[in-house]
């Protein structure tokens, strides 16, 4: 293969690179939402959390010069928004879906407000590890420049799978999600379990947002996230609340999202916007195929409001 003349091979390569690069926010948000939903609550506000995470990561990285401090700040911001969601939801007769919509608006609004002065400056970005050193082809090298966060995310999926299955915390979260009465009978506070689960979910989503502003696309602007957060929430349903399936689904969605830019790079420009909508169309199609009006989804936490 002579370099530079890859022809149509550019497309699958770019999709592979995209699957690795674009999937990371999907992965973190979906794993976070997986924890929250397993505890019996849905947080639709993760779209706002993602944008707030991106903004605070960029701001802290710019002020401190350390991108990892930015990642931490994004996580803490996300956890705080998660605590807000859980706090309001623990009031009687408050609908968790509506609170999610409210926090989606609040999070994006607050991020745009506080992020106004951050559009101009450039912040220190996260480093990447070059896994493509063995290749001479620039496209391959570009596709294999992998961020550490992606590796953490990949490691996190099996850890969560294991934790849900075997640890005390995993069991508690699942109990709260399957039957709040059972958890209460065991002497645990369901609200406290859900508060922690939502905070952890927000923490991970915030980190997903930091990836957007600190690695790819790697800057802060108001069009940074266009529905990745909400797609990731839908993705959890598609993945049947299984962290390992969340991983594969995120990779598939990353690839789908990279399809538009990849085709554009080889000169296929018509339908660019439709290809950009591929993740949403894919989500909708998958939900149509996997859902059924007659039975609740297998693996769905019984306390979850959208499946009852």
């Amino acid at each position, binding site marked *: 293969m002579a370099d530079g003349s890859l022809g149509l091979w550019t497309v699958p390569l770019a999709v592979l690179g995209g699957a690795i690069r674009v999937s990371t926010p999907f992965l973190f948000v979906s794993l976070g939402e997986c924890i929250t939903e397993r505890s019996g609550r849905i947080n639709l506000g993760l779209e706002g959390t993602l944008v707030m995470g991106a903004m605070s990561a960029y701001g802290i990285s710019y002020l401190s010069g350390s991108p990892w401090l930015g990642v931490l700040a994004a996580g803490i911001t996300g956890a705080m928004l998660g605590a807000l969601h859980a706090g*309001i939801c623990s009031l009687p007769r408050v609908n968790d879906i509506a609170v999610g919509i409210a926090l989606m*608006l609040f999070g994006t*609004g*607050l991020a745009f407000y506080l992020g106004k002065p951050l559009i101009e400056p450039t912040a220190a970005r996260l480093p990447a590890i070059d896994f493509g050193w063995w290749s001479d082809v620039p496209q391959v090298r570009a596709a294999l420049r992998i961020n550490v966060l992606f590796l953490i995310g990949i490691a996190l999926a099996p850890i969560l799978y294991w934790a849900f299955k075997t640890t005390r915390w995993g069991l508690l979260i699942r109990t709260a999600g399957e039957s709040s009465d059972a958890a209460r009978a065991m002497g645990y506070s369901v609200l406290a379990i859900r508060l922690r689960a939502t905070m952890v979910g927000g923490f991970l989503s915030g980190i997903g947002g930091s990836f957007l502003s600190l690695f790819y696309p790697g800057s802060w602007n108001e069009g940074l996230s266009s*529905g990745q957060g909400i797609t990731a929430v839908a993705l959890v349903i598609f993945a049947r609340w299984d962290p390992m399936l969340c991983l594969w689904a995120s990779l598939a969605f990353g690839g789908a999202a990279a399809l538009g830019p990849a085709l554009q790079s080889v000169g296929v420009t018509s339908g660019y916007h439709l290809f950009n909508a591929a993740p949403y169309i894919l989500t909708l199609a998958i*939900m149509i195929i996997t859902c059924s009006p007659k039975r609740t989804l297998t693996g769905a936490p019984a306390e979850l409001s*959208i499946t009852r």
Partner: protein
Amino acid sequence: MTTGSADPVEAVGVAPAADPGFLQRYGATIEYILIPGAALVGALATFGLFVALFGKNPLDLYFYMYQGAFGTWFSWQNTLTRAAPLILTALCTALPAQLGMVIIGGEGALLIGALSATSVALAMPWASPLVVQTAMVCAGVIGGGLWITLAGALRQYRGVNETISSLLLVYIGLAVLNHLVEGAMRDPASLNKPSTREIGAANMIGSIPGTDVHWGLAFGLVAAFASYVLIYHTVFGFSARVAGGNIRAAKIVGLGVNKLILTICFLAGGAAGIAGMVEVAAVQGRTNANLAAGYGFTGILVAFLARHNPLAIIPVAILLGGISASGGLLQRRLGLPDASVLVLQGIIFVFVLASDALYGRIGFLKGKS
């Protein structure tokens, strides 16, 4: 406020409360006004605090907000112009809410309605303005209506959660709009901002005489009143509320729940579709990405604040239209970013939802019925 109802001081504080029949009759209504009102005041106070953190005077903030929203005839017109699409997109959330559905895809129905209306207008250049305008309204209703009906049908026949599907449809609708506007329907003359061709000055619906407020406001008011009559004074609306309250009971008494859901979703989407049509025929004159101005998302907030009551939507839409109208003045006079309106909307939404916990718990309104 949550002190016991036995407290005599409270009863004296509210003069008409001396008559127990008054509270029995109007207690719930007072609650519906008092609690969202208190939530609104709480949200404004919180926003004032937030702005004070950035070194701005909250009193200035409230003054300029009032000035920008309701202070002058000019700002009133600005407010009403913004309220018009909000009434219509709020109906898109409020109507399905009667059936217990949470639809948040008003923005998508608005875009598709605008796109359909524009297409129809461009397809019939020979027709007289009145014919074109009528066709645009129909196309807007059908386009937006079918868009939300899709979400309703997916829920009813496939069990797909309508909240998530309607939101995904917003992004898909935006992509379809961008695709057509930059491709098949693009006006070659629109270089910087890809747009469709203009529908023509003769086909614009214009302003209500004596004002700068366009006729979209009339569309909104008519739609809100019609929805109110439909929901509260017809058999259809009654069955919809029965189905929303208890779907099994509705099925047992033989109501066609599928038909109810699809019809309500069509009407809901149709309302948002008219909002799109109005934005084209009264403001933009063409379809382009400017239409995605967030009216659909603010409409969700309006519907929740109005507790999904079609009549209450009108004053709430005017209030929120006022808040967004004051954004420009806040930017110029106080140097606040344009996103401050979004922050305030988010805070209001959070407060309104949290205030749901208060219903039936306010001491002096409780326990008499």
